[in-house]
């Protein structure tokens, strides 16, 4: 029974962290349920907790090989392989929208709240169709 270390703080932290990943995954599922691409969704992400959440629910097919994916969810620009740089990307940080040309949408924190934005011209350029249900989150350009 090595280090059960019931430091309640850590338990609470871990519990809260699980909730955070689950909530983020649920939001992304909702977004992707309202967009369509020419190919089936096969998701690769450098956010491993997110992939675990998708795998738990089996909503989407996921892959550990970036080049097999049809959609990338990116947290850190350094983690994307060059062979995947032409695939559609949904980013987890607003600044990545500026840095990753193939990115068409983002979920990010601003003013202490999570936000969603989808850049319509970029989605259109990659033949991604956005449902009207996401109209509230559509922008024409990056701020």
């Amino acid at each position, binding site marked *: *029974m*090595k*280090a*059960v*270390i*019931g*430091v*309640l*703080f850590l*338990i*609470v*932290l871990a519990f*809260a962290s699980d*909730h*955070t990943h*689950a*909530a*983020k995954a*649920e*939001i992304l599922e*909702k*977004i992707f349920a309202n967009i369509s691409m020419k190919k089936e969704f096969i998701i690769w992400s450098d956010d491993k907790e997110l992939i675990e959440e998708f795998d738990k629910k089996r909503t989407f097919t996921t892959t550990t090989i970036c080049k097999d994916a049809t959609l990338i969810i990116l947290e850190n620009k350094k983690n994307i392989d060059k062979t995947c740089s032409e695939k559609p990307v949904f980013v987890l940080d*607003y*600044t990545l929208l500026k840095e990753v040309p193939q990115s068409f949408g983002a979920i*990010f*924190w*601003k*003013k*202490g*709240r*999570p*936000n*969603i934005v989808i850049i319509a011209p970029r989605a259109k350029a990659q033949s991604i169709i956005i449902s009207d249900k*996401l109209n*509230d*989150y559509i922008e024409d350009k990056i701020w």
Partner: protein
Amino acid sequence: MKIYLVLLLLSALLFGEEKNLNELLSEYREAGELFNETKELKNGHVTIFSRADLDKMQAYTLNDVLKTIKLFTLMSTKLGMSTLVKSPYSEKVISSVKVFINSYEVTSLTDGTGLTQFGRMGLNFIDHIEVYQVSNAIAFSGEPGTMVIKLHTKDPSRENATVAQTSIDSRGGSKAQVIEAKSFDEYTYLANLDISNYNSHEHKIADGSELSRDGQRGQFYVNLAKKNDFKVEIGSAIEKDNLFSGFGKSIDDGEFYTKNYYAQFTKYFDNDIKVILNTSYETVDLTNSDNIGFALQDNSISNLLEAKSGSQTHNAILEKRIEHNDHNLLFGTQLKVRSFFLDKLKSNGVNKELVIGPKDLNIYMFYFEDEYSINSNNTLTLGAKIDIYDNHLTPSSTENILRVGYLSNLSDTTSLRAFIQKGYFYPLFAETTFSPLYFTNPNLESAKSTATKIELEQKIDNLILTVGGGGAKSKDSISFNPIRKTYVTNPDSNTFGQYYINTTYRFDADNKIIAEYFRTYKEDSKYSPDNGALLQLYNRIGKFDIYNELIYRSSYVGVYNQKINTGLDYTAGAIYHYNKKLNLKIKGENLFDRASQIGMNELKIAPYDRRAIFTVEYTF
């Protein structure tokens, strides 16, 4: 119970449909609230004001939060500021409430506690607030306190914005705030500027003199950090206020002008070692002109008192954590060096020589805490601390603190938190070193106290029911002797008891209701409300955030034998989220104009007036 069944039904009807994206975003925000990462249940019975709570409350100043805290009442002071008075004690008993900004303890040597001078502190740069009652006097640095208020600054990686906000109020006051918080690679920074101009109702006393607490305040805070490596923080606050009642009974004119600066450096080393170094400097200029005059400590009458004083404080803290089997051990040491200076003291235009106690104080602290995990549901915390006080004038004194804490998850829905703390309260600066009005007593010894508190929390679906209670016994408490005109040690012991009940019903991530009641018991006299209640309603309807708050405090008879009526303070606010960049806010404070009062110069004064505040917030 019927009411909760109705609430459950309402909740099911209102929120039973499939969640839309906005609701999911709110749940994500709630799950990611930063207090989940900072709150420590082992450190006391904690009340949390999350980022979302503070936003909906439109909590512009620390006082907006302090007034809601159970077992205390926010009251006005004679010098125009406000302080928390512990129920049912008199306002003359200075509460050992400690305020921290992150790990920096906001203190004012000239005041004994940082609370009084920082009630008007703007909260624009604060993410969330944790209020610890029966707070851990070991793991929280510095001298012991009965309550610790921890203000955690916003996380720049969650902000990524520059936000400007300006307010005007119905009394002619105004406020402007700008915050920028950004992250780049592994580094983050936050800068906040806050300027306020506040006007209050002027109270007239029988002889025609007016009590005014109008003033201006400017504050600046900046931090630069690298995650898990270091954090540098610099803060300053400058405040200039009318002196309100002042020391006498017929104020003619007066001003209280304070400047406070601090810098703190925190370094985290790989081997769980943390080092904190900080330094602070403050000056206080006070001018008090009085028509009748007031007696100084040498019994001379002053019609015009001018004083310029200040202090410097330096702190070094070294902490090491060790995880060994089921033990999480904390070893720490702290050195605190404080010095006081009096640059000017004039009465009626002439330099005045008064008796001053020890100007310097060094405190050497050594502490240890073992957080032992009995099993996955039970944790026992044992802590001990030794503090050595040396003022270079009277013999040094050695004080000690012992603390036992027990946390238990009795079931998936029931938890228990119990604490026993045996400690001391060292005499305050105003009691040992300097006051123009009375003789200070450098030979005072610490008051001793033992506090025991227990709290039980039960979750029933969306309802959290918390019941707590306990008591404290103190002896050798310090009290003012008006005949000897100084503070003395009172060898009698006294006891104090309390209980409280809190229910929080959460409809969803944006909608909740909180109802709370407390009652306190003290064996002898009561000089402030002995019971109180709080009702808070947080709502989001479409593009509106709506907040309602009702604070009740019981009637009481004050130290000057004035009967003070029941306090009933109603606050309401609404925020309209016009678009992603613009928010419009309106808030009404003390709408019934019946907030709990205090007797002063034959008047009854509330700590804040009835007023409406209109605010525009723009995000760049």
